[in-house]
């Protein structure tokens, strides 16, 4: 078999995390996604890149936007998409993660998109299957396509990522979105501020090259982008913070706190949002909010990721 005329844009078989990607890898994916944005805005949205291919969405944790976003991306590329959610799978009957992986592998899928509540579970699965694997979120570890779609959104609005200051605020401790974003934004030359109460900051986070703040005002100082994170309902009551009321008072993004960021700062949130907990409705729905655009970029970014991985598929 002869080698393809050009080296692949994306030299990886899986997308398991931002960790391990070069700035060039990331930029290639973002460039690919720019084109996909236009495709999604046309009436005819279908392409044939993945025609005849099988994409399995394997979600051990419930998800609305990520799963539907991958499903739509797969379908727009012409793949057959199968959604496996945990509620109906044999996992409920006691099957182990690896047995599930082997079972699915025997069905010859081309790409499996996996979300799992345990950090490292997707990596484990990737070692046991023959197809490409995309991490759609593993525990508090990584959520690479979210970080990529965030970067795409930022780049389209600010024209660049290098040199920007991005404040990531809220529950960093439990957030895979935060970890992937820190890695990606740092790789592309942005300055990252981490803002939250100490109880929601993972120990040693400052070693990841970020500046850590426990107060929103200095944390938002000079920020071009304010990225709010979702606070899970079960974490609002006493264990990590006293109450939703106190959290909103000190760490919720309202117009007063947003004034501490740059005048042209833009607001992001991976969704779904808790109005009146981590973000005020006026800000979430305001003119500086990119929250809805992030959803659109999500589909485009996932199309780009699937296209990039398709280059590595057998007979691709």
């Amino acid at each position, binding site marked *: 078999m002869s080698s393809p005329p050009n080296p692949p844009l994306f030299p990886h078989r899986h997308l398991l995390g931002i960790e391990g990607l070069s700035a060039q890898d990331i930029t290639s994916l973002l460039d690919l996604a720019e084109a996909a944005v236009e495709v999604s805005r046309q009436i005819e949205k279908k392409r044939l890149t993945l025609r005849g291919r099988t994409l399995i969405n394997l979600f051990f944790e419930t998800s609305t936007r990520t799963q539907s976003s991958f499903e739509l991306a797969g379908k727009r590329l012409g793949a057959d998409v199968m959604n496996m959610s945990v509620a109906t799978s044999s996992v409920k009957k006691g099957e182990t993660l690896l047995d599930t992986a082997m079972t699915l592998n025997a069905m010859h899928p081309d790409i499996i998109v996996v979300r799992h509540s345990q950090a490292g579970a997707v990596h484990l699965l990737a070692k046991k299957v023959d197809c490409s694997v995309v991490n759609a979120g593993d525990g508090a570890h990584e959520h690479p396509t979210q970080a990529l779609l965030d970067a795409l959104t930022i780049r389209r609005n600010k024209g660049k990522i290098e040199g920007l200051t991005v404040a990531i605020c809220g529950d960093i401790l439990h957030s895979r979105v935060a970890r992937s974003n820190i890695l990606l934004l740092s790789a592309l030359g942005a300055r990252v501020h981490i803002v939250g109460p100490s*109880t929601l900051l993972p120990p040693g986070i400052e070693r990841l090259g970020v500046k850590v703040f426990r107060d929103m005002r200095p944390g938002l100082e000079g920020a071009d982008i304010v990225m709010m994170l979702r606070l899970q309902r079960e974490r609002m009551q006493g264990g990590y913070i006293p109450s939703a009321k106190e959290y909103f008072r000190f760490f919720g993004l309202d117009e007063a706190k947003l004034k501490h960021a740059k005048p042209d700062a833009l607001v992001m949130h991976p969704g779904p949002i808790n109005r009146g907990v981590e973000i005020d409705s006026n800000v979430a729905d305001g003119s500086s909010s990119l929250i809805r655009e992030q959803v659109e970029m999500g589909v485009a970014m996932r199309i780009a990721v699937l296209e990039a991985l398709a280059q590595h598929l057998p007979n691709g």
Partner: protein
Amino acid sequence: MKHSATTSSIAHRPLALINARLIDPAALSEIAGGVLVVDGLIREAGAAVVLANLPAHAQIIDCGGDCVAPGLIDMRAFIGEPGAEHRETIATATLAAAAGGVTTILARPDTNPPVDEPAVVDFLLRRARDTGRVRVLPSAALTAGLKGTEIAEIGLLQQAGAVAFSDGARSICSARVFRRVMQYARDFDALVMHYPEDPDLAAEGVMNEGEFATRLGLAGIPREAEAIMLDRDIRLVNLTGVRYHAALVTTALSLDIVAKAKADGLPVTCATSINHLTLNENDIGDYRTFLKLAPPLRGEDERRALVAGLVSGVIDVIVSDHDPQDVETKRLPFAEAEVGAIGLETMLAAGLRLVHQGEIPLPRLIAAMTIRPADILRLPQGRLTAGAPADLIRFDPDEPFVVDPAKLHSRCKNTPFDEARMEGKVKLTLVAGDVVYEAE
């Protein structure tokens, strides 16, 4: 904090206390001199404040050689409100305080309801303003409902006016919870005050473990119940960096732990109670329930260690641990009786016992009741510095008296110094330059 004296002319005319023995807790020294008060603040204190140097219209009080010191600051007192007004009210507690020379009280948060939401802080501040004779500062809960499981609204409580945080007489047993509480409190630079006693180890104990408890047939509490919890706390302070104050330490074991923490540069301070400095387990005698305290009175060796710790500075603060209990809860078999003793009014006189016995110099005693708590709580009072609030007391350290419970001002009379002979009477108490107590 308002009172009838506010309307008198004293607040508006300069006031001079002259011919006094000034006890300066900052310098740990004493000199002959006076204090000039203008507009509720100390204008000048020292040897130069003499009759010849005073403003012409100043009101003059000749102290006749009595001691003048900053008013005392009590970091641990239960003052009844809200919810236990049958035991004490802000009015009665602050009257007792004024008579005892205490001009600032840090109120315990384990009331009913507890001080775990901003509205209760607000209530206390309003009640103190309307009915208090001396300054009352609220402390608020570390954990919601004092249950030791969830972080209290420390940020909102602090904004409402809580100056420190504690769960009162309760220890936070879960290291996981306390670690997060400390982390959270540190973000707000809040002072965490903790009562260190492992309730699981203390179990059913009602007095100090040892020979005396055995002779009385009572279950004991080992010193280790305090040391284990304190040691755990210090390790969590090292992990989190929070400002930590051990609300009550009563054993030599604990002093070793605190001394090491201080030597290691950790932001740790501690207090002991006037009771533990001046009484020991033998004073329980014939099952005297007024001497049933938490932590329990310890042996004489421990008491001496505490005095030594005070002299060396390992112990920062002396508290009254004022805890009024009505007769019904004390007139019970020892094991069933409530813990606690009143102390606001007798704290200074009891402390002077140590001075008279030559165990501690007077300025060091006063420092542990004034400038040390003031510094820990970041208060401007508790010192004789120019510009500080004129919270001042005049006392004769040698005037003898017998403690008569009927004459004490607290609503409850459970004093462990019942009928005790003491020396040292407060003659005058000023808060912000206003007279709030004057002996007959």
